[in-house]
């Protein structure tokens, strides 16, 4: 288990270092995730080194958001004043994102597989 912690934190540190030295406006954790994925693919890291801890963290991800959510109590006044725009905009926009992303994915995917099919047929 210590190995699992060590590997995961090593990638987080790599992300932190990259952000520190390049100044890119992307969080270190996202960079660490991409690096971990790449290292698994390249065989630098073996799946069984990280599988157990990452499984635990990923399946309980929601819990780690609780303290940030409790921060809500610091802006209760602001929310009381403007809850209508905040709630309406957030809810409607979330529905829009889900629909747009899903539709564009389904559309482009069927278009690209048709294209691939056509190319394959012409090649015959």
């Amino acid at each position, binding site marked *: 288990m210590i190995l699992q912690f060590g590997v995961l934190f090593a990638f987080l540190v790599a992300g932190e270092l990259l952000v520190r030295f390049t100044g890119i406006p992307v969080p270190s954790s996202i960079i660490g995730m991409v690096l971990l994925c790449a290292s698994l693919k390249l065989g630098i890291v073996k799946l069984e080194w990280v599988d157990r801890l990452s499984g635990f963290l990923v399946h309980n991800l929601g819990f780690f958001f609780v303290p940030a959510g409790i921060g*809500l109590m610091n802006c209760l006044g602001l929310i009381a004043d403007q809850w209508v725009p905040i709630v309406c905009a957030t809810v409607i926009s979330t529905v829009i994102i*889900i629909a747009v992303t899903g539709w564009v994915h389904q559309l482009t995917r069927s278009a690209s597989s048709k294209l691939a099919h056509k190319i394959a047929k012409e090649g015959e």
Partner: protein
Amino acid sequence: MDFLQNKFFLIALTFGFYLAAQLLQRRTGIKLLNPILIAIAGMISFLLLFDIDYDTYKQGGDYIDFWLKPAVVALGVPLYKQLSAIKRQLLPLLLSELAGCVAGIVSVVLLAEIFGATREVVISLAPKAVTTPIAMEISSAMGGIAPLTAAVVVATGIFGGMTGFRIVKMSHIHSPIAEGLSIGTAAHAVGTSAAMERSERYGAFSSIGLTLNGLFTALLAPMILDLLGYSV
């Protein structure tokens, strides 16, 4: 009464609310008993009731918050397991993410304006679809209120996680890939944990959604806000 401000007690209580809601939700099947939602609501009520301020809670809460970053790194594992599926459809993934990202920022800004939000609230809402570290960074850089952004981000995640599968059904989105992807795009890591409960495959595509939208939002949100008249 001093004991109520003890950080270990506050951490234990957070676990308590979360576990109780999880147990109740499994027993009753009521979606509104979302453990994240109940833990937040329960803790806020408790803190207000006993007049404990957020900074005191944070001394315990930071130990939980700390694991958010390693947990996001851990998402690299399900991502790796789905790499071959991602490679097969790189272009559809990039296009749909780009569309989702732009549609999300533009829609939330315009809607908040229409419903009469003030300038700083509009900016705070703009990055609400992506995970807290990215969203808070964009919000404060553009002149928003970072704690409000964090709260809205978590609320968005809970809403998306609870209703996401119903919304994709109503929008006639059928492929598991598109379903997972759009939930991760709209509701970041909290939506992803809901998708993960359905299956690892949904969860993996959801984590692609949260990653790509995080990247696109970090890069594009300042530009889009600028175009909509919210320059710094």
